[in-house]
């Protein structure tokens, strides 16, 4: 039986709405450095885009993402909303940049901003739902595979997989030379594999790669776990007593973290993420 009915993707909606707007002049490489330094969790709680310093601009993007996740609008309509906002500000990219990723009004840039935000919320939602104890028991693993074709797909995913496996734990994850990239759902390989430092889709910009559940019997046949191995659910609560050690290599990054308003450094130099309006 099929029927049309709008139903919120609760976990995805929560994930989208929980993000704090983060105006910044940081570039993509600096965000990547923050992830490499172990601060992915801070970025996971923020809505940002490289070089977007306007809160109002971020708010338009944020609203678009929230409405897309809620299933009440489409990408073209939200892209138009962003373009209309930028037209209203008189924004125009330098001629040499028009139509490129650095042009805030280009299709490619706006599509990326909206789609990554939506995919992160939906990826979190699927991951979170999969952490339910009975589901985790029946589907303790997931497979990393291509879910969308690309004209020029990245060829280095097997190497990246093996590098992440070697850098974390080899047990509980297959070697990519086996022909499959499968790991237990709460294996650290997922965070290590992800450009964004998160264990859920997307794992890189426009990658076309995703994850699908693997049943326990299949995971056992791959040697990842035994029949009685218990996998414990994980949680990634938003705005909940997050702390990050300050191994921020550049003073500039430290200053930017401070300026985000997402938290503060304590006397020991640990960055404490704070609830909005809290201590």
């Amino acid at each position, binding site marked *: 039986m099929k029927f049309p009915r709008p*139903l919120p*993707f609760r976990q995805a909606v929560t994930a989208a709405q929980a993000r704090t707007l983060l105006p910044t002049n940081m570039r993509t490489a600096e965000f990547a450095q923050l992830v490499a330094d172990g601060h992915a969790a801070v970025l996971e709680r923020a809505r940002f885009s490289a070089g977007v310093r306007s809160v109002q601009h971020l708010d338009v993007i944020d609203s678009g993402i929230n409405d897309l996740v809620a*299933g009440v609008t489409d*990408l073209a309509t939200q892209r138009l909303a962003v373009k209309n906002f930028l037209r209203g500000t008189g924004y125009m990219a330098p001629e040499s940049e028009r139509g490129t990723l650095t042009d805030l009004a280009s299709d490619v840039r706006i599509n990326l901003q909206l789609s990554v935000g939506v995919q992160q919320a939906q990826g979190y939602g699927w991951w979170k739902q999969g952490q339910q104890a009975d589901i985790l028991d*029946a589907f303790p693993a997931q497979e990393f595979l291509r*879910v969308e074709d690309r004209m020029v797909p990245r060829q280095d995913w097997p190497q990246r997989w093996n590098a992440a496996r070697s850098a974390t734990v080899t047990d509980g994850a297959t070697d990519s030379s086996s022909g499959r990239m499968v790991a237990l759902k709460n294996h650290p390989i997922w965070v290590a594999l992800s450009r964004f430092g998160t264990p859920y889709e997307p794992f890189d910009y426009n990658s076309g790669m995703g994850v*699908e559940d693997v049943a326990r019997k299949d995971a056992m046949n791959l040697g990842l776990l035994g029949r009685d191995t218990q996998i414990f659910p994980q949680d990634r609560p938003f705005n909940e007593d997050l702390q990050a050690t300050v191994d921020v290599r550049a003073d500039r990054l430290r200053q930017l973290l401070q300026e985000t308003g997402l938290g503060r450094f304590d006397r020991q130099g640990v960055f404490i993420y704070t609830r909005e309006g809290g201590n």
Partner: protein
Amino acid sequence: MALSVLIEFDDPRKYPPLLRLSNGVQRPDIRRVMGRAIAGALRRYFTKLDRERPNQLGGTRTHFWGQVRRSVQQPELVGGDGVKVAINHVGIAQRYFGGDIEASPGKKLTIPVNPEAYGHRAREFTDLHPIWFEDGSGVLVRDHTESPGDIGEVFYRLVKRVHQDGDETVLPPEDGKDGLEAIALNAGEEHLQTLVARAA
């Protein structure tokens, strides 16, 4: 508008042996697993559609079916033997049920007919202008500077209403050995076998 798929496992004759003996379908933990299996099957099906059904106009792909895949949710348990899976994408219900779409009073629908127009709102373009026909329909065109006097390059048709046929193949079948019901029952049976073996 989103679409929900409701499957009721109300025919014990279809159950695999352990589920039938134990009436395991009534157990919420087993049905959660069955529901997740349905959701996973839907996601895999939409991956297949994304590969097999790029937009017919060509141009830059929007990966509509990839978007639909990511909007599949964890099912709800319904009653004593049902599961309902929501697919929370704005365009899926229209694709499945079809129907007429009518423009608001005083307005027209814009139907893309140019690869560059696909996936774009007409108002994203700043260089199109309308040409109207006697029947009230029209087109949005971009002028051909190389051929002045030519109608121009047509991007959109402007119409009052459009009919879309429904397409049940945008969802996998529920019945049959590879249908959603069988996938769910097999997942429930397999999980119950594991639980029984552990308890033995």
